[in-house]
């Protein structure tokens, strides 16, 4: 109680402090909202393309065999335990946001070592059955057991993003932007019909 009391400002300071706090809270909420931060808590790939810079990865992923069963976080965030998951997300997200905001992003992005390890572990997480049980290798050659210790992407270099993903590699890719499916003229026309 005594400790809390110390935090209460002297009476003559109370008003400016409240105003200042309010402003900062508001600002924080504003930033949270316009940067679409709430969505960072989820797993939607749409989140990642809030930054146009992620468009090449989004476009390549969304045309890959992994589209239906994975989202970005399935590969790029540790999935083995919930704390590691959110810790990694927060750390990574903050760095991306900082770099992006400061306009320090490179023309060609490369994955960091730490991220690469995360991805590798996630490949194995999903494909483990196929990789570890030689009896079940019905769809593959038999040798995966001996490959586990290399990066999957050493061989599967096109999975899922392909090789070259510079900013200009997918100039017009349709990353999910809001847009009416039925254009205005047609909506009007149909309203006015008969």
């Amino acid at each position: 109680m005594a400790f809390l009391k110390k935090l209460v400002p002297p009476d003559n300071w109370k008003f400016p402090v409240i105003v200042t706090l309010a402003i900062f809270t508001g600002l924080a909420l504003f930033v949270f909202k316009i940067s679409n931060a709430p969505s960072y808590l989820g797993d939607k790939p749409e989140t990642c393309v809030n930054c146009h810079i992620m468009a090449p990865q989004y476009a390549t992923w969304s045309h890959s065999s992994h589209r239906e069963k994975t989202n970005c976080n399935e590969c790029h965030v540790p999935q083995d335990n919930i704390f590691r998951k959110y810790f990694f997300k927060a750390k990574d997200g903050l760095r991306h946001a900082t770099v992006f905001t400061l306009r320090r992003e490179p023309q060609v992005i490369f994955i960091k070592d730490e991220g690469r390890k995360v991805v590798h572990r996630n490949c194995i997480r999903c494909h483990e059955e196929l990789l570890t049980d030689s009896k079940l290798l019905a769809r593959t050659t038999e040798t995966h057991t001996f490959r586990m210790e290399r990066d999957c992407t050493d061989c599967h270099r096109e999975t899922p993003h392909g090789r070259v993903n510079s900013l200009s590699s997918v100039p017009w890719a349709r990353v999910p932007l809001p847009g009416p499916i039925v254009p205005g003229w047609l909506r009007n026309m149909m309203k006015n019909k008969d």
Partner: protein
Amino acid sequence: ASSIVQRRAEAVFAYTPEVTFSDFEPRNSLWGELFPREYDSYLKTADTTFRSKYNGSAMVDMLQESPRMVVLWAGYLFSRDYGQGRGHYYAIEDIWNTLRTGAPGAGVTSPQPNTCWACKSPDVPRLMNETGAAEFYRGTWETKGSEIINPIGCADCHEAKSMNLRISRPALIEAFESQGRDISKASHQEMRSLVCAQCHVEYYFNKKRTEGVDYLVFPWKNGTSLEEIEKYYDDIEFADWTHALSRAPMLKAQHPDYEVYLTGTHASRGVSCADCHMPFISEGGQKFTDHHLQSPLNNIAASCQVCHREETDKLVQDVYSRQDKIMENRIILETLLVRCHVEAKTAWDKGAGEDQMKDILSDIRKAQWRWDFSAAGHGNSFHSPVETGRIIAGGIAYAQDARVKLARVLAALGENREIPYPDISTKEKAQALIGLDMKKLRDEKKIFLDNVVPEWIRAGKEREAGY
């Protein structure tokens, strides 16, 4: 924060092209100036060299492939001429050429309405925007000849400003509404099939909706399965035509590609039309959507192999083996249907009564509807082989039901032998059998193509020059 706000705005605009034209720009080359890769690949739909076992981009005269179809469509325009669809590039050329649109000219009108243009050109949304859908459909086909001159293109599937996919045809929106669904809720991935479903679907012309208009309707109210669509037609006692030999009230199925696709494994796994027919490809370090819409068998690497780690030959074999298995019974059904029509005609000739024939004609209608639904979608046997097989088996059962009953009726009329199978070994023989004067039709068409079409093109270009 301000920098985030700013950068977000950029996110929307950085990839937004400097479009100088509207959604209604029908000339593909103009869009092509901004999107050269997509346009160049689109132009490849003009290539007609690829042929697979059953499909491909070459001109395939289906009536020559199977003269049985001539008999199946006796009394209907399809018995004159029916080709397998080829590249989008030819949409306008082919509708000019087909004998089904007749030879309009001085004082002569086409047997078809303007509705036929609906799925052939980006001039369609342009015109519909001006007049509304019903007015667009009104009138015979030749009356819009000079208005519609560009083959299927960008404006059919894209919004100009954002290049987002969009629905440009009211028929599909109305079909969703008839099911109580809202198409504007479709996901991005669904849109990659729905743009195709604007055209690659079963349709009919509703004459009751707007006075004097053949209104384009997709009969999906009860659902999109064979039986649900059949029920729709039965309920409104609809028939496309009365068969010239059997006098059965027939239904014509037109390319129910989307409907059948929906029942297949790939649709159930979220694979879209564009995934196979418009794969993402890479050229000079750039990735884009291949707008060379064609048989995926001409590009297994970019389509199938994205998902299937199988040898090319093996994947082709997968497709062929399914098509072979379906084709085997489809041909049996076709042959039985020829017999149905011929036997029914014999019964009428021998003096059968309406009441004796009623059930039989209903069986024939059902049987041929099943045949057509499976045959008219050229990808069906791969898109959904189990469903297509189911449909054909049902058709065989109905066709034979009809024939068992016909055998009894014929016997009662004193005819108790097998009715000989007609000699329809070529398209020409088959067309002669049903009494078509093909020479006349072709001569008239030639005059139309030589005289009328050039005038349409001239007038159209003149109009466009003023845009």
